[in-house]
């Protein structure tokens, strides 16, 4: 079965390897350029050399592949590798060939899934770790929270989730292209839902409040994730302004702002990775059920 999976999916494997290597090389190159030991001076607050390599690194950063590319990539893997895994067999009728050989559908499915998923997860982990190094080297201007989805283990969990989603959708729908649409849509909904709604509430936010308006400065917590803009309150506790400074003539008594401190970053990474992994396992369970019970 492993040979069959390799023979069937070696093309996707080659493409993934090329794309993954390009991204990893780009991120690794930038991280290397940013390393303090290679730093002749600061440009725009970043530590760039001004030789050709440094300029290439700046271009890569401006292209933002280390930021957006890593959010999109798992979705593409789910749609273009996950969806066809079962769906293409059903489209071509070859599932009737595969499911009448001397291998159970369960084994057929799990081997295929494992051989396709595992290398992609390793790739996602490698890219995610390089990203951590890059962000560490970006200097004080960079906040890990701003790159939450791009670091390991989130890259791994997101890739696993996207693949499971694609495979399950493909098995259910039985056609690759509609399954891709379903996968991309569901992936975006779940990722945005988790990031916008669930993530700020994994742990109770810390409240930053002070009467010392002159000394109020959220830069005092450079590694924090600020959940809301500062709210200004009057002396009787009434809300004067949410966001911008209080209007003229209003006497601000104190200011309140909520944040997740920087030392919770890895806890949050773990929580969301576990959530995505659990969703992925549920989807795989569903796909197993559907493949083994499916009428052919």
């Amino acid at each position, binding site marked *: *079965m492993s*040979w*069959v999976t390799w*023979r*069937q999916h070696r093309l996707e494997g080659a493409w993934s390897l090329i794309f993954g290597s390009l991204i990893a090389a780009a991120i690794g190159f930038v991280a290397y350029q940013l390393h303090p030991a290679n730093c002749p001076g600061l440009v725009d607050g970043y530590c760039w050399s001004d030789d050709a390599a440094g300029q290439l690194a700046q271009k890569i950063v401006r292209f933002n592949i280390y930021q957006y590319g890593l959010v999109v990539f798992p979705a593409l893997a789910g749609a273009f590798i996950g969806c066809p895994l079962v769906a293409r067999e059903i489209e*071509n*009728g*070859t599932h*009737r*060939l*595969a*499911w*009448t*050989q*001397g*291998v*159970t*559908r369960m084994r057929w499915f799990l081997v295929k899934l494992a051989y396709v998923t595992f290398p992609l997860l390793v790739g996602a982990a490698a890219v995610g770790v390089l990203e951590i190094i890059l962000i560490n080297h970006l200097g004080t201007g960079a906040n890990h929270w701003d790159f939450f989805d791009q670091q390991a283990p989130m890259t791994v969990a997101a890739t696993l989730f996207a693949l499971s989603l694609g495979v399950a959708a493909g098995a259910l729908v039985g056609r690759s292209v509609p399954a891709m649409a379903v996968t991309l849509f569901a992936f975006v909904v779940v990722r945005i839902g988790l990031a916008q709604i669930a993530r700020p509430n994994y742990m109770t936010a810390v409240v930053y409040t002070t009467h010392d308006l002159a000394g109020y400065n959220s830069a005092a917590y450079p590694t924090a994730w600020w959940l809301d803009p500062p709210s200004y309150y009057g002396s009787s506790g009434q809300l004067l302004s949410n966001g911008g400074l209080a209007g003229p003539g209003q006497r601000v008594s104190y200011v309140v702002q909520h944040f997740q401190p920087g030392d919770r970053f890895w806890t949050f990474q773990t929580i969301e990775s576990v959530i995505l992994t659990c969703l992925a396992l549920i989807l795989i369970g569903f796909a197993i059920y559907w493949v083994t019970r499916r*009428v*052919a």
Partner: protein
Amino acid sequence: MIAPIQATGLGKRFGRTWALRDCSIRIPAGKIAGLVGPNGAGKTTFLHLVAGLLSPTAGEVTVFGRSPRSNLLQLLDRIGFVAQDTPLYSGFTVADMLMFGRRLNSRWDQSAAEDRLRSLEIPFDRKISHLSGGQRSQVALALALGKRPELLLMDEPVARLDPLARREFMQGLTEAVAEEGTTVLLSSHVVGDIERVCDYLVIIAGGQVQVAGDIDALLALHHLLVGPRLAGDTRLPGLDVVKEQHTARQSSLWVRGRLPQLPDGWREASLPLEELVITYLSVPGAGSLPKPEPEEALA
């Protein structure tokens, strides 16, 4: 002896439509059985139920005495299945397809499969997508036979082949299964194909089995009687009339069974297989006649 295929009250419903209904047949070991019927008759559904690709809605089917759905793995090693349109991986080469069979089947016979394709002069390094329809079917057959199956199921294996390729395919099939005594069930809507290779016949129409039995026995059992016009609802006793047709002067009866002596003015003709099949297919209710048991038919 355990029958390779035994169906009892077997039925399969898709949504509200019964694709197969109340199907009870027994295919004896070593037969090459033909499953004939028009398109949409339930042939594919029946084959898929036997191969474990579908679960029955009603009744049961056993393969070598076991239920395909619960003992799938033990059975799949013993069943060769060639699905309709002979699905193969179009990006694979012929050699890749053989490797596929080898990796997925414990009783795989590589040299037999290779010899088979070599004798047909099918190049091993050619991609499946570049093969002719006949070669494709031959690869699918080699793949199914390479498993050394005890039961070979084929769904319209020659439907897309030209007459010459059909003949060659059927010829090759007969030779291949003769040595091992493999039981074969193949579907077709062309009676000529069935007549050439099969010794057992199942006629299926409208999701129901019309008749099943040894072809020789069926031919011996069925006759066309032609005689003077029968008045009203006169019946000739001792005969099951499958179909009747009357003109002003004469009556024609397609019957099952034989009279010891024909009444005056009547003559009896044998029915060719094609005629027998068409007779059953043209009379939807014929399946509700008491079915002849193979033993009874032979007697």
